[in-house]
């Protein structure tokens, strides 16, 4: 189904790819999902797929039980749907979050990845591996950094 729709958009005679034809929206949790989706809303994307990457240990126990991670994913999708009622969802399981985002973008054939930087100070960004930097440097398709707005986290 996802492919079918994607083909309809990209296959139409003007190959003039619309940046917002199909936006992949990685979200971390309910609050983040709502804020991210709200930030994207004014630009009226044609199609949105919400992505939640369940962080896996791949060889070591996860930080959180899988069951809990999946609950968080479900909450996040619901939050995205509060803004984009027809948003699709996609769940990935990986240790490498950025890698999983890029794979997912491939898989759903997204026209762009839109995300909201997580913030945090330098030390924290260093410790959690600066995701923003990795995402923009490693992506093979447009990456849209959404404004963070005033939401305090």
């Amino acid at each position: 189904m996802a492919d079918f729709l994607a083909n309809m958009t990209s296959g139409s005679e003007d190959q003039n790819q619309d940046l917002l034809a199909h936006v992949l929206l990685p979200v971390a949790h309910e609050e983040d999902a709502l804020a991210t989706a709200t930030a994207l809303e004014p630009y009226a994307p044609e199609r949105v797929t919400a992505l939640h990457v369940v962080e896996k240990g791949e060889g070591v126990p996860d930080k959180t039980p899988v069951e809990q991670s999946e609950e968080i994913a479900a909450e996040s999708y619901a939050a995205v749907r509060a803004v984009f009622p027809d948003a699709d969802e996609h769940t990935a399981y990986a240790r490498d979050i950025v890698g999983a985002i890029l794979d997912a973008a491939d898989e759903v054939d997204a026209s762009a990845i839109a995300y909201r930087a997580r913030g945090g100070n330098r030390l924290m960004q260093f410790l959690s591996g600066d995701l923003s930097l990795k995402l923009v440097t490693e992506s093979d398709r447009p990456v849209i950094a959404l404004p963070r707005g005033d939401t305090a986290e």
Partner: protein
Amino acid sequence: MSDEELAKDLGLVSAMTIGIGTMIGAGIFVLPGVAANTAGPVVVVSFVVGGLIAMVNALSVSELGTAMPKAGGGYFYINKALGPMFGSIAGMGDWMGLAFASAFYCIGFGQYLAEFVPLPEIAFLSPIQIGALFAGLIFVAVNYIGAKETGGVQTVIVFILLSILTVFAIAGFASFDYATLAGEDGLAPFGTNAILPATALVFVSFLGYAKIATVAEELKNPGRNLPIAIIGSVGIVTVIYAILVTTMLGVIPWPDLSLDAPVAQAAEVSFPASISLPGPLPTIGGVAAAAGAVMTVGALLATASSANASILASARINFAMGRDKIVTNWLNEIHPNYATPYRSILVTGALIIVFIAALGRDIEILAKAASVLHLIVYALMNVALIVFREADVPEYDPDFTVPLYPITPILGAVLSLGLVAFMDAIEIALSGGFVVAALVWYFLYARNKTPQQGVLSEYIRSREDELPDQVVGAADAVAPDGNDGPTIMVALSNPRTESSLITLAGALAKHEGGRVLATHIVTVPDQTSLETASENREQLDTASEKLLTAAKADAGEFDVPIETKTILSHRGFEEVFDAARSNDADTVVMGYGGARFAGGRAEGTLDELTHDLPCDFLVLDGQDLDLSDVLVPTAGGRSSDLSAEIARALRDTLGVDVSLLHVVDEGEEASGREFLTEWGTDHQLGDAEMLVETGDVETAIEQMGEGYSLVIIGATERGLLSRIVRGSLVFDTIDRLETPVLLTERPTARSLWERLFGRR
């Protein structure tokens, strides 16, 4: 691959390193000195005995773990089997046990750290405690941030440790001297009576294996890998302990073995001070000191990984307890940035810090308190295993089963509690305090929150007649009352039947003090994807909303809480079952048309489904209900019990007149009347009109039924619903009767498990 498989990424090696990594830190690096001091060289036997006790329990954990690969481990099994009261004890025991164990590992870390760097003595804290507090804070911080790097390191640490220890064993073997081992006073200077108290002390070195079960849901192929990892890691560490402790005691006489850093000391003695290389190469000095230093680093790594794994495991237990509402889910909130269960980690961390500061001067207390609490959990776990087997819950289907049942679990429980007897009063009192605290917590907080009920209490309550009153009374007294009344789910599909179905559900909910859950299940043809269907949701929404708003209004008349839900599904009828399960419904009310709708599709699955009802089912044939009087034909039985409940609810909430009908053969009217009167009284329908008819049952129901506004018929045998669904039910009564008919079916005890465990 399904999502579920994607989420499983721990192989056998990873699972084993969790077990070995947790256990080895304590046994080898921390305890040998202290333990040798209490028992002499026979302490090796103490380690082996500890290993055997752990092994018996490991077998039971393996069976439970393969039956229920769920986050939470021991707590989870006990809560399911024995109910939330014991669940609270187990959860508290597991949690506090891990906190004590972590404090113990931190002290071990502090002991070796103090070898390296001089630590100050502050106030009432010894230098070792300072080191331990420092370590504790670091471990908590690392888990709080959830730095990924720590994870990968665990496997590496375990392999480094095993290599270091192998080298040490070889070097130690070279300088091994039996005379040193035997010492001046023989192998058992304190007599063989000292063996078991020493086992009690060193048992903390075996506390790692059950942690594998707490991450069972992440294991690949848990049916195979879980038992191998659990049993294997216990076997491996027991052998390692036996060899290395023997080596240490053969290198250094036991009275001289260091209490704080035995391995570093033994390594310094085992390795020669310098190695002379052949020819012109220079002599390498300082080998012994270097070996001691390497051992110290190894010890720091080992204790760190033990503590780390324990903190993580405790968060899992908190999560499982939160899921059952035994603790508030506040504890399990995930940090928005680090995606860690930070509150749980902080609370556990605070406990660890307190234990280190308050009790850290005596490492024995920490070690034994951790063991006592874990042993209590192990004993309960063995009882849980027996309950699962005896209650004969068919869905309890472990891939691995303990050998020699029931000897193994009984032995496990006896050995676990037996070992507690060799602990000192202070640790037993401390642990007892936590057990009491858990009980107080259960009765004050958890009891009216948790919806869970154990298999045991269901078993007792379902055999009310066969078991002594005291037992049933006791089970009732401690049973949870958190589930304030039942959930009555209504599966709506047709606006014309909405009001009748809601009326029935509302009356039932009001009578039982429950709530109504009105669902609109929208069947989407297989050809249409759910996404497309949701694109048409505007139309759908309007239809659904109308239906559900009407439902709300109708339920409002009964003044019962109502929730509404629209569910898109490819599988109309089966979805009813799924929804009933996932919403923990106690009763499902649906229309006959809705059930017939599914006719013909996937009979195999339907058979399976309908033979295994998740809860009571009420199927209404007829659109308009104008309830004034109901007829309940009965011949006794499970589903008639349900019919009686419905009749009672209608009588009490709507003032409906109830008539009971019993059909007998010619000439048996007297005994029939007797039966009916008794049945009516038993079901609190003594005031109903009692009708005894003779002749053909169906004809009688038909004739009598005409005069009533509703006939409630209980399924006389299992599978009634499946026959309705497939349209093979030859029940002319329903077709011929103008009066609406409510068919009731109550599941047999078989599907109890499903209510407890949800869908598997």
